[in-house]
């Protein structure tokens, strides 16, 4: 065939006129120009091996990190190796300074996922240009479009929706990977300027630490990782650090060598348990019983730190036996309704101070029970919280608790001895407890142990729950107002905030109260937040899955739907948009709800049809992206400059520097969202739209949105670097090191915890040369806790808690979520990915099994004739999915394990574990109209659960397996 | 054994080319290479109990045209082992003494080296190899070595060719003169390689017809 053709036949007539070098993709490496290079004689060449003779050198190395929510293990400074505009490899920088000679340093950090991220940047899953759906949603039919076309079309839909139906129809679904840096600041500024709704997904991911919130009025408490070295007993309880704290795990293995007792409490003989000095097997979802029996042994053995609990907790406060409410000063003598009463051994009454914990010499009688004559003359019996608690704890003998949690009494007593005799007791916090329906009760019972023993606020001693540490300049950038201006702005709106500060309230209480305005207040200068769990349940139809929740949850007083409606009606919980105002536009930003939300198939059925536009901003093709109208390609982490929040464990701000240009036409998030504002402004001007009132009555100026967004051009779409720097300069806790220095070094230690509502709850001083210890403002400086009683509070006299008999910590058997089936499907964060990001990485999957599997015990497998690797059908009343088995003697009979973050497209029929997890909301978490049980940033919101899901599994026949 | 003079050996490059039918083939008796001579304990230990080099007979024929010599080997093999992926290839070799009186079994010695052509089924790879004793083989002089093998009907047919003239260090072949030739065959399926092979009992006299 080629004989007929000759070279000339390819050449168009006159084409030679265009002879000459035309090379858009290349430049001369060293020669002055391409022409000059071509003119020089070619180098010596005999075979391709000659190209390998020359030494391979790097163009540059740049400090980078991975802007993803690795949470308890975050973050790590990397050196990123660049050649020819490509990232070829990365290696940990390992330049962290040792804090104190007796403590291990933090080096090298990093994990197996971070050490091959550069490979992920160029894999086929990477998105390179904006794409628009052409077929049905989820059909996988796409068309490549320009940024102009995509942003104009989205801008037009935005303008249609906000002008015709309201600004609360536009929803920002924010996932766990928001960085509280420049990228997320652009999104928050956009949301604040347009009053679109931001979904707070923390609790909906099951990370809300409800028990800590009910007890401390705050979930933010985590210690410096080196501080574990000062503990002599560490309880790894509700966490699996060997999987999910890879860069920090060495502190636990090294502490163990240093003589510390490391105890792991888990259903399975987990990867963390093999590193323990004692492993305590426990039935999934029953840890409350284990905690309560330890508390029982503490009280029974008279090991209670009476001074500590009298000063720091509500245990000495009196409770009316007629109403179950606290006795108030108003009850006693018509005084303050919000002040509560103690009685000393001599019978003298004392009002518990609200501005300080200092008892000033008062010695309350913890066991007091007496009758009191109220201001209105009536006689009422009252008792201390402690006496009620002691009565309840008496029932939790080791034998009784063993029936509930399956842990042998002898083992319980040995564990209790270790805990009681500990000099410094700490716990490794994870996020698994709150993925159980009664997770709040479990956490309250665990906290009881630390509090009864006074193990708080000392080196190596204290309870850890939710770890979060952020710069406090972010809110200033987002609102465009510095803190003083924002406080003044607050008073213009009639808020009594300044008045609180004047009355001597602590800054923690002040700033937490200010944060709650994000959920309700029309004048807030910050974005409008709403609970994503509520949003998925009400607007997403997830509540339909809870129809027969009464069958699964003994003692449920009313259907979940009714509980939600009544809580909304009583304004206990704010939900935006309101139930009758359907959402129209959904922006998924650092989020993947169709993969992560329990029962997510309902969202496609109920929510998706309501939407005019669903837009995903991500750098890879996620499950949610497959069901989107537009997928906008985000730059990868080595292709932009920004910084990210961390936790007090590793209190170092980490910076990623732009090492290479974004691939294809992908752009960084800051650019994408700022350009969205630009296109909305342009289209508004072209369509003659000026401004409208938001659903909260604030004026939204659409035809000047871009100017407002960029503060009149100060921070245009090209200024992510400048904006990131500004945020730090505004911060009180990260402005002590220049932005240039932080970019160069890749990390900088926070100077203090700071005033952000996302960190202030840690309530302690962050020193330069000591690991952080939380809550010392309370334990040492006697500042009040942000609770109703201004103390660590174990008694909740809220009507819902009284109704459900959860006013005091107690054990409740785990519900049979999904129906009466023999096996409990537990789970946990995987070793192989953070959320879904590495779940389809070739390297990670080759070191795993390449496809999803459910770990089942050797016993359960034998009973069902299942051997390792067999295909299984897992089912309950709500749904079913198909997965392969992994049989292990380490797994607990009766409990299976589905490690997290598989995408739906990993499963046959695209049905995964989410399809069998109904996850109805827990009614007590809907409580509101209460001094501290109310919405806050990332806390005080209803959670969702999947660890109580009951299933049965059966082996697929070979024929069925072959057809998959 | 005789290498018949032909006008042009290009007609003989294909192992099953018809002209080979007219060339008398020599029946060469083969035997396993002596285990004791293997270069190290490991190889001896791992083949002590394992049969190898079980080929009993090899048919060899040769022609030359004054410029290049072609040697055709035919031997029985139930199925071919191409040595793709992790497998070992079937292979064959013809060896000539360079000088002195090298012992074939010893693969020659320092002062009596041998010069061989080795063909491997993997990509018909053919190499010129010099050896001065067992385990000492290294690339031989350039004799424009070439080889082509074909398996059919339970037999390998392999033709190896090289120049008669040879640069320094090679085995000299001169039309009209005699020399000696030795043979080796490796069975890839039996993981035979290096010294583990079937070899001709001893040198066979080879006379290049004038």
């Amino acid at each position, binding site marked *: 065939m*080629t004989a007929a*053709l*000759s*070279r*000339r*036949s*390819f*050449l*168009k*007539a006159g*084409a*030679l006129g*265009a*002879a000459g*070098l*035309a*090379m*858009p*993709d*290349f*430049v*001369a*490496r060293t*020669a002055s120009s*391409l022409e000059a*290079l*071509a*003119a*020089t*004689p*070619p*180098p010596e*060449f005999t*075979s*391709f091996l000659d*190209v*390998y003779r*020359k030494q*391979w050198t790097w163009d540059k190395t740049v400090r980078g990190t991975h802007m993803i929510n690795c949470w308890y293990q975050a973050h790590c400074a990397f050196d990123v190796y660049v*050649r*020819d*505009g*490509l990232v*070829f*490899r990365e290696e940990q920088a390992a330049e962290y300074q040792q804090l104190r000679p007796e403590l291990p340093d933090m080096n090298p950090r990093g994990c197996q996922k971070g050490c091959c991220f*550069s*490979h992920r940047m*160029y*894999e*086929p899953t990477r*998105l390179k*240009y904006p*794409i628009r759906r052409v077929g049905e949603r989820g059909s*996988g*039919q*796409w*068309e*490549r479009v320009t940024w102009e076309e995509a942003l104009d079309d989205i801008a037009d839909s935005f303008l249609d929706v906000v002008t015709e139906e309201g600004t609360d129809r536009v929803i920002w679904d924010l996932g766990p990977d928001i960085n509280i840096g420049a990228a997320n600041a652009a999104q928050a500024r956009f949301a604040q300027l347009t009053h679109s709704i931001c979904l707070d997904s923390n609790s909906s991911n099951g990370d809300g630490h409800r028990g800590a919130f009910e007890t401390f009025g705050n979930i933010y408490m985590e210690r410096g990782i080196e501080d574990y070295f000062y503990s002599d007993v560490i309880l790894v309880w509700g966490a699996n650090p060997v999987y999910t704290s890879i860069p920090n795990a060495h502190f636990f293995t090294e502490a163990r060598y240093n003589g510390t007792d490391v105890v792991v409490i888990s259903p399975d003989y987990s990867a963390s348990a093999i590193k323990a000095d004692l492993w305590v097997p426990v039935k999934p979802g029953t840890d409350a019983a284990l905690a309560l029996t330890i508390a029982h042994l503490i009280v029974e053995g008279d090991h209670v730190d009476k001074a500590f609990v009298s000063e720091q907790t509500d245990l000495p406060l009196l409770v009316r036996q007629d109403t179950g409410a606290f006795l108030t000063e108003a009850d006693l003598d018509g005084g303050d309704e919000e002040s509560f009463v103690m009685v000393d051994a001599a019978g003298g009454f004392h009002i518990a101070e609200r501005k300080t914990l200092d008892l000033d010499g008062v010695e309350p009688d913890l066991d007091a029970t007496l009758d009191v004559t109220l201001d209105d003359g009536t006689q009422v019996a009252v008792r201390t919280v402690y006496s009620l608690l002691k009565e309840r704890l008496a029932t939790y003998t080791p034998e009784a608790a063993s029936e509930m949690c399956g842990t042998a009494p002898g083992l319980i007593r040995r564990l209790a001895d270790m805990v009681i005799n500990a000099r410094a007791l700490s716990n490794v916090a994870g996020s698994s407890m709150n993925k159980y329906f009664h997770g709040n009760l479990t956490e309250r019972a665990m906290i009881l142990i630390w509090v009864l023993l006074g193990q708080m606020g000392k080196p190596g001693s204290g309870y850890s729950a939710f770890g979060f540490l952020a710069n406090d300049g972010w809110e200033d950038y987002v609102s465009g107002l510095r803190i003083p201006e924002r406080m003044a702005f607050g008073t213009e709106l009639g808020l009594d905030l300044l008045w609180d500060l004047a009355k001597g309230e602590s800054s923690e209480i002040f700033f937490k109260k200010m944060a709650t305005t994000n959920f309700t207040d029309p004048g807030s200068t910050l974005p409008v937040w709403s609970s994503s769990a509520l949003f998925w349940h009400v607007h997403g139809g997830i509540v339909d899955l809870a129809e027969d929740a009464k069958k699964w949850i003994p003692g449920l007083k009313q259907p979940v739907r009714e509980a939600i409606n009544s809580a909304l009606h009583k304004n206990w919980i704010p939900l935006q948009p309101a139930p009758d105002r359907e959402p129209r536009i959904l922006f998924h930003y650092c989020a993947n709800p169709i993969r992560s939300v329990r029962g997510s198939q309902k969202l496609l059925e109920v929510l998706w049809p309501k939407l005019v536009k669903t837009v995903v901003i991500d750098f890879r093709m996620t499950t949610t992206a497959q069901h989107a109208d537009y997928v906008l390609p985000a730059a990868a982490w080595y292709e932009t400059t920004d910084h990210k929040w961390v936790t007090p464990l590793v209190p170092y701000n980490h910076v990623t520097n732009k090492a*290479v*240009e974004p691939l294809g036409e992908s752009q960084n998030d800051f650019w994408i969202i700022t350009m969205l504002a630009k296109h909305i402004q342009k289209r508004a001007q072209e369509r003659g739209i000026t401004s409208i009132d938001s659903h909260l009555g604030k004026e939204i100026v659409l035809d000047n949105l871009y100017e407002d967004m960029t503060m009149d051009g100060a921070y245009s779409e090209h200024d992510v670097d400048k904006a990131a720097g500004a945020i730090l300069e505004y911060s009180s806790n990260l402005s002590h090191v220049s932005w240039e220095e932080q970019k160069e070094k890749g990390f900088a230690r926070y100077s203090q915890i700071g005033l952000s509502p996302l960190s202030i709850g840690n309530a302690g001083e962050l020193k330069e040369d000591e690991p952080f210890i939380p809550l010392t403002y309370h334990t040492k400086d006697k500042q009040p806790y942000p609770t109703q009683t201004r103390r660590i509070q174990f008694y909740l006299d809220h009507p819902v808690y009284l109704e459900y008999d959860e006013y005091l910590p107690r054990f409740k058997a785990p519900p049979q979520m999904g129906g009466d089936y023999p096996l409990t499907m537990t789970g946990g964060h995987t070793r192989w990915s953070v959320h879904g990001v590495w779940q389809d990485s070739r390297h990670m999957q080759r070191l795993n099994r390449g496809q999803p599997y459910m770990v089942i015990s050797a016993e359960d497998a034998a009973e069902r004739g299942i051997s390792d690797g067999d295909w299984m059908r897992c089912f309950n009343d709500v749904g079913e999915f198909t997965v392969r088995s992994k049989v292990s003697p380490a797994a607990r009979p009766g409990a299976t394990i589905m490690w997290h973050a598989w995408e739906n497209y990993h499963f046959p029929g695209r049905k995964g574990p989410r399809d069998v997890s109904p996850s109805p909301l827990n009614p007590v978490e809907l409580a509101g109209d209460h001094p501290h049980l109310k919405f806050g940033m990332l806390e005080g919101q209803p959670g969702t659960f999947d660890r109580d899901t009951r299933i049965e599994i059966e082996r697929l026949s070979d024929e069925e397996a072959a057809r998959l | 054994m005789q290498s018949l003079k032909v006008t042009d050996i290009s007609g003989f490059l294909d192992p099953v080319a018809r002209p080979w039918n007219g060339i008398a083939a020599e029946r060469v008796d083969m035997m396993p290479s002596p285990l004791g001579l293997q270069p190290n304990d490991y190889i001896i230990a791992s083949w002590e109990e394992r049969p190898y080099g079980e080929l009993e007979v090899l048919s060899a024929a040769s022609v030359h045209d004054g410029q290049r010599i072609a040697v055709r080997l035919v031997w029985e093999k139930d199925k071919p082992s191409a040595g793709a992926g992790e497998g070992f290839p079937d292979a064959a070799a013809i060896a000539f003494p360079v000088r002195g009186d090298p012992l074939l079994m010893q693969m020659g010695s320092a002062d009596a080296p041998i010069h061989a052509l080795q063909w491997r089924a993997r990509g018909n790879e053919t190499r010129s190899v010099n050896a001065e004793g067992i385990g000492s083989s290294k690339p031989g002089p350039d004799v424009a070595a070439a080889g082509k093998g074909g398996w059919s009907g339970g037999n390998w047919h392999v033709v190896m060719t090289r120049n008669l003239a040879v640069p320094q260090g090679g085995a000299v072949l001169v039309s009209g003169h005699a020399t000696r030739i030795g043979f080796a065959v490796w069975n890839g399926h039996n993981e035979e390689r290096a010294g583990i092979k079937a070899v001709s009992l001893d040198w066979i006299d080879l006379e290049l017809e004038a």
Partner: protein
Amino acid sequence: MKRQPGSDLPETRQAALERSVIYRGFADAFRRPDGGCDVLDETLIPPPPPNARKAFVDAFDEAISKSACSLHEAAHSTRDQMDLFEELVRWYDHFGLRRTDTAELPDHISVQLEFMHFLTHQEYLHGDEPEAAETLRSAQREFLSRHLMPLAQSIEEKCRDDLGRYSALADQLPAYLALELERRGTD
């Protein structure tokens, strides 16, 4: 045979110049839906169809359409992507070139064709230096046989044949490259 104006150059240099222009034509054609129209002959490679953008995407954009076949060598080989990038970057570096910061990845067919455009142009400039010309021709042959030809052939197999210009491109490139590989000496 179309007479090319201004072909007063000695036969070999003229050939190198024409080949260089053809490579540029193919490079542009695989880069943009309307690329290479000024160079490539319409009878062999028809002009872009009316819905050029959609057809181009359907032909070559694996991130978009089911039937598309990738223009990246990595997608057509089991070789580790970064290892392939290293070799290609070393090739370009050996001849003094570096990709621009916004260029396509090193294994994209338009980048490889542009590299050939450079080598053939350099051959044209050094047409009267036999040694330099021969070095460039052997480099071209080796690059063609190791990378560009197998990629072009794989694209030809996988590319749909109902997409006009773009199907023609996928068919004609391996045909042209076969011509290039068959060439001995001075063509």
